[in-house]
């Protein structure tokens, strides 16, 4: 028969090896593909963390209740001293109250400014800054120029879930 004749001899060998190769290729492709699906789609690097607005909470408070940001961003070069003074007194009063309510601050060094103080050995350079004739080893004696500020307690509530934290002051629309 014709098939018998095709499948015999060197042709048969060629066809056979071709088929074998094709099968092998098919098999290999299947094998590779299944490995690929197991390892899933190409992985993207992890998304960068969404910026938190937590550092904005205090300034948001000072703006909403003390108008501090409005004041700082306003062009006051044209204002008279009297006008500036009147506004600043109000803003100062409100912001001072807010600061005292939400941050418990204490001076780093308790003495009065202008007094002689001693800086002990092993002092924390982020808490005490030395200026002037700085030589030798601690303990140092010098004049207290600034008492410093340290925050003892932060009393800032977490805003409600529905609050857009990046809005530190909502726009105000008055309805007639």
């Amino acid at each position, binding site marked *: 028969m014709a098939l018998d004749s095709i499948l015999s001899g060197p042709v048969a060998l060629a066809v056979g090896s071709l088929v074998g190769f094709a099968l092998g290729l098919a098999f290999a492709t299947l094998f590779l593909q299944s490995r690929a699906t197991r390892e899933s789609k190409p992985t993207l690097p992890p998304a960068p963390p969404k910026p938190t607005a937590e550092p904005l909470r205090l300034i948001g408070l000072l703006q909403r209740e003390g108008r501090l940001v409005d004041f700082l961003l306003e062009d006051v070069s044209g204002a008279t001293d009297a006008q500036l003074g009147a506004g600043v007194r109000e803003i100062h009063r409100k912001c001072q109250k807010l600061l005292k309510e939400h941050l418990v601050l204490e001076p780093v060094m308790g003495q009065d400014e202008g007094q002689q103080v001693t800086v002990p050995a092993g002092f924390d350079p982020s808490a005490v800054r030395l200026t002037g004739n700085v030589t030798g080893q601690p303990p140092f004696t010098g004049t207290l120029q600034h008492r410093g500020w340290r925050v003892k307690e932060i009393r800032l509530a977490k805003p409600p879930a529905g609050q857009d934290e990046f809005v530190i002051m909502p726009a105000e629309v*008055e309805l007639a």
Partner: protein
Amino acid sequence: MTTSRYVVGIDLGTTNSAIAYADTGAGDQPTINVLPIPQLVQPGAVEERPLLPSFLYLPKPGEQPAGSLKLPWDERRDYAVGEFARNFGATVPTRLVASAKSWLCHPGIDRKAPVLPWKAPDDARKVSPLEATTLFLKHLCEAWNHQIARDVLGHRLEQQDVVLTVPASFDAAARDLTVEAARAAGLEHVTLLEEPQAAFYSWIESTQDQWRKQVEVGDVVLVCDVGGGTTDLTLIAVDEQDGQLALQRVAVGDHILLGGDNMDLALAHHAARQFARQNVKLDAGQILQLWHSARLAKEQLFANPKLESHPVTVLGRGSKVIGGTLKTELTRAEMQQVLIDGFFPECPPEAEPARQRSAGFQELGLPYAADPAVSKHLAEFIRRHAEVIAERTPSRKKRKLSQPTAVLFNGGVFKASPLQERMLAILNQWAKAAGGVSVRVLQGTNLDLAVARGAAYYGLVRRGKGVRIRGGAARAYYVGIESSLPAVPGMPPPLKALCVVPFGMEEGTETDVPGQEFGLIVGEQVRFRFLGSTQRRGDPVGAIVEDWEGQIEELNPLEMTLEPADPTSGGRKPSGRTQGSTIPVRLHSKVTPIGTLELWCHSRDGKQKWKLEFNVREGRGTE
């Protein structure tokens, strides 16, 4: 019946409420403490305050960020009570309920209908004065339960003995509504106490039992309570019983809507006029800022006698805060003129306060006092009760004195000593003119919290610790009977007043009203015209007063509908109660131990009783 561990006093004020308590489980001499009240102070921020501003903010969904109104005990709260409600609500008047207490005793409106915020559009969230009062009490309840009763069910406020204060000038219907609000908030064991009496109890407590050294027999103490929204005047007489000094509340004044808020507003308007002179017009938001700024200037000037003036500043509304700043000064002289001379002018003891001018058309609103002079209202009060004061003069004195001999100031307004001094100077003028000596001052403390503390102290007094002020009904009450004269077209038939509750009728007593029988028609609404008097004190129960103009005022009517058929007999044998038949009844009045009034109709044989209800739903028209 077990007594509760705590006795609690609640001051439900027009502008601020407070709650004080004594722990009877903490030793023999329980001290009075004030409970700090957590409340929303900014969206998302809940903080404790000693006072709870009596303001209710009712936003619609979407007006505030989600979760911004939540409280530690309720994540899903969608309204706010307290400081944030007051501050923010002032900028959105269609969402703010203020002065709910003044609306609760307003005879001209339906007090159970959702009418507040007053004049808010129809699609706004609305509540009735009764509901608003309930919500304030509910907040206080929740604040208490959250702090004191978290672990122990028996410490919940609903289980404690609560003394709730009301103005002495609240009539029977307003007291009834207050108790109804308390019950709706879950408070079952409530007793009412008049606010000036509470202030007096607070003074007694502050003297630590040394009060007897400061008063004597024959003293008549004027309690002058000027709060944020109201002026409440009371006289307490000191007499002797069983060798001991005893106290009795002998007179109360009318409900006068005049208080610290009016004073702050007057200052703000004064400052606004100064701006107007510079051709600067202020919008609504700026007037509000001006109000706060003027109040601050006032407080500073009162606190520092050396200060000659204080700036009143309004910051610009947009981002140009400095460019838009408006400034004026409030001088001491101006404050003297507006506040001290405007609200506490010197006047003779015969002074009359200006009356409400009845225009043809009067817009219905809160009936603020027409005359802002507190001293004139005081003069009228003392004059009305001159006889009562005079009869207390000790017999050793030659001349009967018809002026009070001592004064106790209460209320936020009197935190400013210049106002106390002026009031005292006026009282001394009147006392000297009447031939008496200087009026003694009983030193009150903690003027914002005195009423709550005094109410808690009264809770202890009710358990037998301490002296009790005798009082009884603060008014005489009457039922109106139309006389049997022939009808004249167009003229209402003259009304006679039948006394059903005599002045001073003690709490916990009841009495039949003799002499009159009434016919109740079954199936029809029964209505009695109801009147009250703070002046007439000699009428016994059953007395008929024919000429009562000016001394007795009409209140909301009493009502009842007697249903036909007897429910217990299954409706088969109506026993005389068929539709349209008339049942003869007598009136029976009762002053309950908690301080409310009940009027009943008793059948002739005394076996059947029906209670008359105060009609708080119908307005009585402009009056």
